């Protein structure tokens, strides 16, 4: 009788990493559907292409590193990166944008650092920022939501979209300024007037047509993940609270120099996608509960600062990357108080 000699514990239960990743992908569904509904099939192509490219690059990198390809692909992490990158890119952008983004995300931001678990930065955000800085024209042409379309005009069809994506055949008038752009450009109208006059706002209800629903979709997905205990509430909630507090402080009573209402900030741009799918990325965030609260709050503050005073209309990717840098530092000073210790220690304590 060959007895197994292993150390305790002998029992194991709980989600596997792959299950967690599948849950994350599943939870993007409401937001994804909202984006497709308002911006058309371009979103589907983006996500599909990004997923394909990411998995392809992941397989290539693992193969080159001489590791078992299927073992690593089965953790679904590349797929998650693909989905998140696909969701953040402008619909109908050229195919090579998506592929270059995937390459940056998987090869540059992830595999060069040692693969899953070792990347200091969120791969999708690294890719997004590289693309935004390298190809600003392609990256700032957002499709107009369906509510903005004039009578008789429809969202680009499948063949139009494919031609646009693969051959660069232009589509007439499919782009429009995003609510964040409009709010940033505005320096003469009261916020209330903006809401009343701008079609991007007056065809929506809370924070701009289309965007508000996409954000609500991601919020629903995030709450689902929270209920599944895929992550803890600390980072996303503190980020949203910090953003709300900043927006409230600088709302300025809705004057022409206002940054917009708290609700506007919560439901526009990448706020909810970021709060529940990017900020919660465990690999690149702080580890302790206290650390995650600080991490999330700092991202929330930075998002508002860059949106309001910076040059870019949205700021999530930059904020997340900046805090990825800071995460190890936060970790050093936010160890929890261990049983039997009067107070929490610092990770730097033993260093002389």
């Amino acid at each position, binding site marked *: 009788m060959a*007895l197994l000699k292993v*150390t305790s514990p002998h029992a194991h239960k709980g989600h596997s990493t792959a299950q967690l990743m599948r849950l994350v992908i599943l939870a993007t569904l409401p937001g994804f559907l909202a984006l497709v509904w308002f911006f058309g099939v371009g979103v589907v192509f983006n996500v599909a292409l990004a997923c394909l490219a990411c998995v392809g690059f992941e397989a290539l990198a693992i193969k080159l590193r001489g590791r078992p390809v299927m073992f690593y692909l089965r953790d679904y992490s590349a797929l998650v990166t693909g989905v998140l990158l696909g969701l953040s890119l402008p619909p109908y952008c050229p195919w090579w944008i998506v592929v270059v983004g995937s390459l940056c995300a998987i090869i540059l931001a992830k595999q060069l650092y040692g693969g899953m678990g070792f990347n200091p930065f969120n791969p999708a955000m690294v890719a997004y920022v590289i693309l935004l800085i390298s190809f600003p024209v392609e990256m700032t042409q957002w499709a107009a939501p369906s509510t903005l379309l004039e009578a008789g005009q429809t969202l680009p069809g499948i063949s139009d979209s494919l031609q646009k994506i693969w051959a660069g055949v232009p589509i007439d008038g499919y782009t429009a300024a995003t609510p964040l752009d409009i709010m940033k450009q505005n320096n003469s109208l009261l916020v209330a007037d903006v809401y009343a006059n701008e079609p991007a706002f007056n065809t929506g209800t809370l924070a701009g047509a289309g965007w508000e629903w996409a954000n609500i979709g991601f919020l629903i997905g995030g709450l689902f993940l929270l209920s599944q205990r895929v992550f803890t509430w600390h980072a996303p909630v503190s980020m949203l609270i910090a953003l709300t507090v900043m927006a409230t402080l600088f709302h300025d009573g809705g004057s022409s120099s206002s940054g917009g209402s708290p609700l506007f900030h919560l439901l526009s741009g990448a706020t909810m996608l970021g709060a529940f799918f990017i900020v919660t990325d465990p690999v690149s965030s702080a580890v302790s509960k206290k650390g995650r609260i600080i991490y999330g709050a700092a991202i929330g503050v930075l998002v508002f600062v860059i949106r309001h005073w910076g040059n870019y209309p949205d700021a999530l990717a930059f904020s997340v990357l900046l805090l990825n840098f800071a995460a190890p530092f936060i970790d050093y000073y936010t160890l929890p108080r261990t*049983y039997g210790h009067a107070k929490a220690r610092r990770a*730097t304590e033993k260093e002389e």
Partner: protein
Amino acid sequence: MTSLIRIRDIPGGIHPPEHKDQSLRLPLGSVPLPPQLVVPVSQHIGEPATPVVSVGERVLTGQLIAAANGVFSANIHAPSSGTVIAVEDRMLTHPSGMSDTCIVIETDGKDEWIPLQPCEDYHALDKAALQEKIRLAGVAGLGGAGFPTAVKLNPRSTEVIDTLIINGAECEPYITADDMLMQTRADEIIAGTLMISHLLHEPKDLIIGLEDNKPKALAALQKAAEGTRVQVVEFPTKYPSGGAKQIIQILTGREIPTDHHSAYIGVICLNVGTVAAAWRAVRYGEPLISRITTVVGETLEIQRNVEVRIGTPIDFVLAQHGFDAKKASRLIMGGPMMGFTLPSPSVPVIKTTNCILAPTLKELPPPAPAQACIRCGLCADACPASLLPQQLFWYAQAEDMEKLQAHNLFDCIECGACSYVCPSNIPLVQYYRAAKGSIRQHEQEKEKSDRSRRRFEFRQQRIAKEEAEKEAKRLARKQAAEEAKQKLAEKAAAAAPAPQAEVVAEAVAKARAVQQTPEEQQAKLERILAAARNSLEHAQQPLVPNEEGAVITQEQLEKQQARIKQAELKVSEAEKKLADFMATQNNSTAAPADTPAPANDPVAAAIARAQAKLSMSPEEKLRSTLESLQTRLAKAQEKANAAKAEGSPTADALQQGVEKLQQKIADTEAELAQLAPAASEANAPSAEQHAAEAAIEKAKAKAAALATMSEEEKRAEQLKSVETRLQKARERLAKAEADNDPNIEAFRNGVVKLEEKHRELQDA
């Protein structure tokens, strides 16, 4: 009974499937006596017990077979009557599979007990006697750690115990041994609790705590506790609430500070089984020879709790329960969370065996391959000690000892909750155990090297101190010498402005020197000679390599030879001086003939002579010397003749003196003839050279002899020489004592030193 105890929650924790039903369906069973009992002498934390029986001896049930080795140990008793057939190393019930001394008893089936000493009323005993009874019975923590119970029941006098917690939580899946014990022997547990309370000076709270998944045990305990101070408290089921630290936190809200025992915060925590065993030890005088164990797992036909004798081989127990070896994947002692896999099924049941788990492959599948840590933090949420397991894992992989300790690795209780929840199947606890082990080892090594470094530094310090002292002495001597010189110069300058002054001073000094008794001078010279010989001997000693294995270099050899030569020169010089002195002494013995009544003031006489000399030309000087010598010779001759005629013992010496004088006269005449003052010098150096050469030859011969001698012979040679020297030194000392010599102390020291050396050589 509603309790007054407030239940607190612990951080973290998990809810694994309990699997407790299957072993509770059957009543408590028993296992027949096996043909052989294998009883390890180390079943507890602390020193192994020392066997007190020999092979072939017949032992009775409950007889002491291995005695506790010190306080931190426990007695071991024969679990049944029979014959000791071996006291040998057998594989232990330990994850490592290591072997240690076991006492093997071939049972005779009679189970004949030794006479027991029951105690009807423990209140009649004093506390020390009560504690001794528990100690003698070999009771050790039955919950799993095996901590000697008597030690726990004897807290420091500064630690006031206000809470006694009896741990019946049994939070591990599968295990129901304590549950069964509480159901069937609740009265023993309550009685034991009261007894230990008495022993601990009646703490304020007596609490039996158990998880709320044991309603039958709770009811039985509550019934038994009616009318007593004991509070039976249940709390929500959550692993690992049964850990001592955790149950204390749940029931009191207190945390044991790291590096302390629970008594530090006024709490003693004992397992229910331990309490029952302690009670039986006092009430019935029964030593700990059996325990209740859960035998469970899908590979068994019968799953239940059994009372089993310590030492029963586990495969024997399994065979009694229809064990299907083909289905088994592993055998675990303890539960699935903290138990360990058995190295072999034949190891025995020991005092801490609370469960034997024989699962199928399906029940506890082999661990899946580990994936990368994604730092999801599920482990941190599950950790009851509020650690960051993902960070510990990271630093354990990096072997960053400092970071591991800063992250409180040593507060990890190895409960396994983190590994249980890890989505990447990382065996976290295994990493922590390994890291703890290497840190401990590292610290031990560090301590060792620190110790030797301190020793080295101390030695360096001591040497430096000695050097400094020597240097200080040297400086003092130098200063004294300079001062003396200066004084002399001043004196000389003051005494005479003319160059004569120096000559006068010299003469004065010489005369003063002469004033020293000859014995003193001789002793001094002999001392110098002895010292010179000593250093020669030292220099001749064979070279010892600085370090083991090092080779003696050519350079070292040359240095040694140089040292030997120098020493030889010194010896010859000293020998010559002594010889000269002896000669002058002979002269001076003759001198009295020259000046029968030695000048009352030889200094004045010398001054007069010197001054007279100064005023003479060299030729005149020589002449006057010659004259005086001739007078002296005549007188000496006279004296010698007289002595010869009388047969005086000094005759020879006097004759020698005469000869010397004759020689001197001849020399002076020659000098005078040549008027070359260097004439006399030519003689002296050649004589000196000759002496030195002889000494060198002698020393060389000795060194050569030493080199060819074996270690043994060398020692014998040295011993002999030391003995001779010692003999001489003793004689000299005796003489000095007789003469009441002022240097007697120095002689005595010399003898003592030689004696020491002699002893050393003899010892070697």
